């Protein structure tokens, strides 16, 4: 990279609202409109509310998993003192900016529970609690007030971490010294610990407790593996789009795409490793209370979704991303990034929807409507936050090293 390009990147102007045009407000309006349409469809169709609640949880989980993955990425870079990734970090920081809004979007899930709604979480059903000994035994943990409190705690903590890293990073852009970077590094250890604990229990609460009888201690890691896959795919796609619109100059090079490809490859394997670890122990022990979860996902067509995940979430990207030349080709990498985002959505679908319709896969318009609805609001939040910041951390002490980064 020549000196002119480096200078150009270091003097990258901050993003102006005019550059985004109508995109943020359009995304917000379309998102809100689609969610209202979804609500209407759910309200007026038979058994629609239960279905709606599940696909809404799916859509929120999908975008939350990207934002949480981004939070993990940001904290990880400071924890490891990584330098190659500096040019990508602002994009990840912006992805975490949607976390508070996603927290607000959990309200439609949490609030009805105080009125006894068991549309999503059957353990909130008072009658079931009386008759089912297992649910009764778990009531001290699985009850609406404590559930709501935990949601609040998770989102508060994530918001604090996300804002801390975003504000310090922006402050570093104009700072004369490296104090903000030092502060970020200092807090990266505790932040990572807090993140690991909360994402684990968040996955237990929101996804695993859909089947209140079932438990798997590795479930939180499984969800985390999906988050990591999602964020590396999203970072590759986002960098490519921003570069196409000339917003980050030549900051992200083939070398950075190559590394994103490596991480996407690695975490695709990690996901398969964790998914198989979960399956193997349950399969081997063959205890009904554990196998029932897989039983629901191995009949009435769900088995094909499971097989699709084995092939599409593991074997195809594993061989597709194995070659160095594939990872260094922007076109090939972007294909796999989009493919993995789709697979990640199917993975979450396979986790959540069998709880609503164990008898059929039943893909419906609500799936897409809520996905685009939540996605629109998510995207609008991120774009609005991006206005006024540069899309590359221009003041980062390691920026030049990141720009000069070269895979040996």
């Amino acid at each position, binding site marked *: 990279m020549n000196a002119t390009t480096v200078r150009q990147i270091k003097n990258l102007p901050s993003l102006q609202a005019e550059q985004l045009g109508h995109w943020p407000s359009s995304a917000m309006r379309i998102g809100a409109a689609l969610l209202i349409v979804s609500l209407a469809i759910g309200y007026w169709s038979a058994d629609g509310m239960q279905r709606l609640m599940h696909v809404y949880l799916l859509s929120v989980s999908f975008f939350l998993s990207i934002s949480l993955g981004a939070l993990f990425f940001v904290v990880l870079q400071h924890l490891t003192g990584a330098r190659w990734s500096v040019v990508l970090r602002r994009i990840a920081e912006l992805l975490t900016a949607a976390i508070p809004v996603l927290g607000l979007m959990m309200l439609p899930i949490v609030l009805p529970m105080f009125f006894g709604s068991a549309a999503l979480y059957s353990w909130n059903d008072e009658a079931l609690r009386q008759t089912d000994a297992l649910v009764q035994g778990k009531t001290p943990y699985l009850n609406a007030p404590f559930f709501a409190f935990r949601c609040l705690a998770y989102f508060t903590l994530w918001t604090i971490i996300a804002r801390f890293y975003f504000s310090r990073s922006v402050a570093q852009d104009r700072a004369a010294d490296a104090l903000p970077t030092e502060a970020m590094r200092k807090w990266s250890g505790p932040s990572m610990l807090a993140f690991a604990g909360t994402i684990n229990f968040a996955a237990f609460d929101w996804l695993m407790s859909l089947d209140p009888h079932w438990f798997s201690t590795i479930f939180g890691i499984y969800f985390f593996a999906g988050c990591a896959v999602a964020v590396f795919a999203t970072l590759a796609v986002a960098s490519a789009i921003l570069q196409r619109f000339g917003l980050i100059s030549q900051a992200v090079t083939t070398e950075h795409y190559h590394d994103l490809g490596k991480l996407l490859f690695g975490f695709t394997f990690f996901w398969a490793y964790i998914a*198989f670890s979960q*399956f*193997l122990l349950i*399969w*081997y022990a*063959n205890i009904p209370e554990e196998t029932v979860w897989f039983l629901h996902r191995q009949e009435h067509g769900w088995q094909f979704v499971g097989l699709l995940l084995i092939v599409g979430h593991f074997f195809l990207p594993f061989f597709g991303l*194995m*070659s*160095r030349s594939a990872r260094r080709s922007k076109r090939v990498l972007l294909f796999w990034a989009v493919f993995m985002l789709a697979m990640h959505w199917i993975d979450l679908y396979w986790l959540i929807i069998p709880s609503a319709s164990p008898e059929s896969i039943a893909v419906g318009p609500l799936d897409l409507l809520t996905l685009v609805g939540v996605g629109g609001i998510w995207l609008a939040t991120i774009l609005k936050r991006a206005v006024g910041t540069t899309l590359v951390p221009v003041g980062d002490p390691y920026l030049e090293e990141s720009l000069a980064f*070269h895979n*040996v």
Partner: protein
Amino acid sequence: MTSEQQQVAADQPRTVGLLAEFATQDELIRGARSMRTNGYAELDAFTPFPIHELDDALGVRPTKLPWLVLVAGLVGGIGAIAFQWWTNAVDYPMLISGKPLFSLPANIPVTFEVIILAAAFTAFFGMLAFNGLPKLSNSLLRVGRFSTVTTDGFFLSVDAKDSSFDEKVTGEALRLAGAKHVEPLTEEPNPSAMPRAILMGAAVLGSLALLPPVIIASARSTTSDKPRVHNFFDMDFQPKFKSQTSSRLFADGRAMRPRVSGTVPRGSLQQNASYEFGFAPGKASSGEGDGSETATPQWVKEVPMTVSTELMERGRERFDIHCAVCHGKAGYGNGLASLRALELEQGTWVPPTSLHSQHVIDQPVGQLFNSITNGVRKMPAYGHQISVEDRWAIVLYMRALQRSQQASLADVPTDLRATLREMN
């Protein structure tokens, strides 16, 4: 070339290439590019730190190693699956908790590990092989100024194997390409000789390796008044009772517990006494008409199973395994174990009874069955190692064996009598 010239050539170290030093990394890269333009291919560069452009300047092609690693991984994975299938499902089928004999999920961890092992070994040893490592000698280290390569020296070498290599011409080309110094790389006088340090190290390690066997041998051939060393104390002295030992834990002082009276262990319920024991409950009369009871049990007279060719074959097979070693395959009491015992003049050996002696022929099947089950005189009991069904099969075969040795022409089917005569 005369013999004298040959002698001189042998004394002179062979030139294996040229080493050129460049002042800066940029000059090195320019030099490498210019040498490649001149048609040289066997180039290598040595720098204090990695220079990314060098790969391109030297025309280094991507290594083929990843393909080898991929193939090794695939072969390892397929081999591991196939081997587990063969061992678990074919060669030694073992049913584990009702799973299919060949259960893919159970085989994945081993397969995964073998893939990693095969791939990692291929990567490691393949890297060594592709780099020609380990090297016993390195002509670069014979050049004094090469030691600056770890601080500020930038070097380019041209191998003599290059088709355009000529010491004078190539040296001039290197100078033109910007080298500030060029000198020949010479081979060590004996390039494939094992360095003394390695030989010494191997000798030291080899002698140290002899110590444990020497210590063990001396300990085994001498006596010691020190107590024995127990490396695994809790394995040598386990907190458990062995069979036929005493215990103060129980009132009767026995470590082995008798069955609780009035109970039958699972699978041990013997409902049909004639079938299980070979005799019916109660005592038979002496048969002399005086009405007095003797100790003779009511022996079963007929094999209490459906007689079939399969049962007979099973009996022959079991007889040959369990009985023939003493009684002989034909039952005359001349089995190999007996012959050997007689040959060694074992005083305690009682030759086994011939199964063709009249008192054995006269015994009812139930009595033969009982002898197998509980043993008779010096013959041990086989009831605990041969199943009831197999014991009856053996009895059936013994009956056939006895009849075969007492056979008359009437026993041979008429249509086979002619062949009998011919064979005789």
